[in-house]
């Protein structure tokens, strides 16, 4: 196996996902690194955000991830770093949701690599995740990231429209479509 420092984001994320799975911990990649993967690194996230959908303790996660050389810093946080990697790893709390919408384990995407299989948000859920940040926090970067992913991958627009209605963001959906169409 290549040293940790030489792994691509996708390879490292898949290795982490596989290693944690071998310890009985099911995680799904969420957040900015999904954008990086789906946009072929046109957006560069500095961390890997995994949602632990098996609801294991922080100690169990720490024990599993330490086998790869990651260290819990600060101690008892949900944040891990590796001396040879620029990517930090975080475990935001479950459940896996985008806005008010719960994402069941069966509805996540998978990407296979030589180092294991990565489970991550689908492109459509990745777009919702970014748009949720835009609507809740007025984070314009996240709006750009949502458009970036939607331009690079097929998106379920019906699902996206329903999600906007449930979030009370009907006008936001129109704005997003205009941006997607380059208007």
């Amino acid at each position, binding site marked *: 196996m290549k040293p940790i420092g030489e792994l691509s984001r996708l390879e490292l994320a898949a290795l982490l996902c596989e290693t944690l799975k071998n310890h009985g911990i099911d995680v799904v990649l969420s957040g900015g690194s999904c954008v990086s993967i789906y946009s072929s690194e046109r957006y560069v996230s500095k961390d890997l955000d995994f949602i632990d959908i098996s609801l294991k303790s922080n100690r169990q996660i720490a024990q599993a991830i330490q086998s790869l050389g990651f260290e819990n810093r600060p101690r008892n946080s949900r944040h891990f770093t590796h001396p040879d990697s620029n990517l930090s790893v975080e475990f935001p*709390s479950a459940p896996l*949701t985008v806005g008010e919408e719960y994402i069941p384990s069966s509805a996540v995407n998978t990407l296979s690599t030589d180092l294991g299989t990565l489970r991550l948000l689908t492109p459509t859920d990745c777009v919702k995740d970014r748009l949720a*940040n835009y609507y*809740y926090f007025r984070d314009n970067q996240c709006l750009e990231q949502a458009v970036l992913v939607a331009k690079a991958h097929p998106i379920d627009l019906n699902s996206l429209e329903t999600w906007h209605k449930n979030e009370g963001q009907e006008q936001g959906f129109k704005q997003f479509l205009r941006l997607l169409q380059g208007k």
Partner: protein
Amino acid sequence: MIAVLEAILGSTSAERVLVFLCAREGGYAAEIARAFATDLSPIQKQLERMERDGLLISRTIGRTRVYEFNPRNPFVPELKSLLRKALDLYPEQIKESLLLDRRRPRKKSKPL
């Protein structure tokens, strides 16, 4: 404090933090401690723990770290309902001090 809420949360400081943030929509450790005339350290610990676990988010304004409920956490609406009910049952004096804080601006040079 409300005994049932403390039983659920397991800590008086946790209850104080959550009730304060529910009443004011946001706040920092020193003002929460001041509002309940209590020590700063346990309040800070609770804020950090709740942020770590995704219940709260924070941002810095000047040199102050201000906390609020994480709007992306799916449990927040129901939790706020519970806290509002608890707040209704608080002694009038505490309730008023939490709810009736001055929010409108005051010019720097304006006399009190």
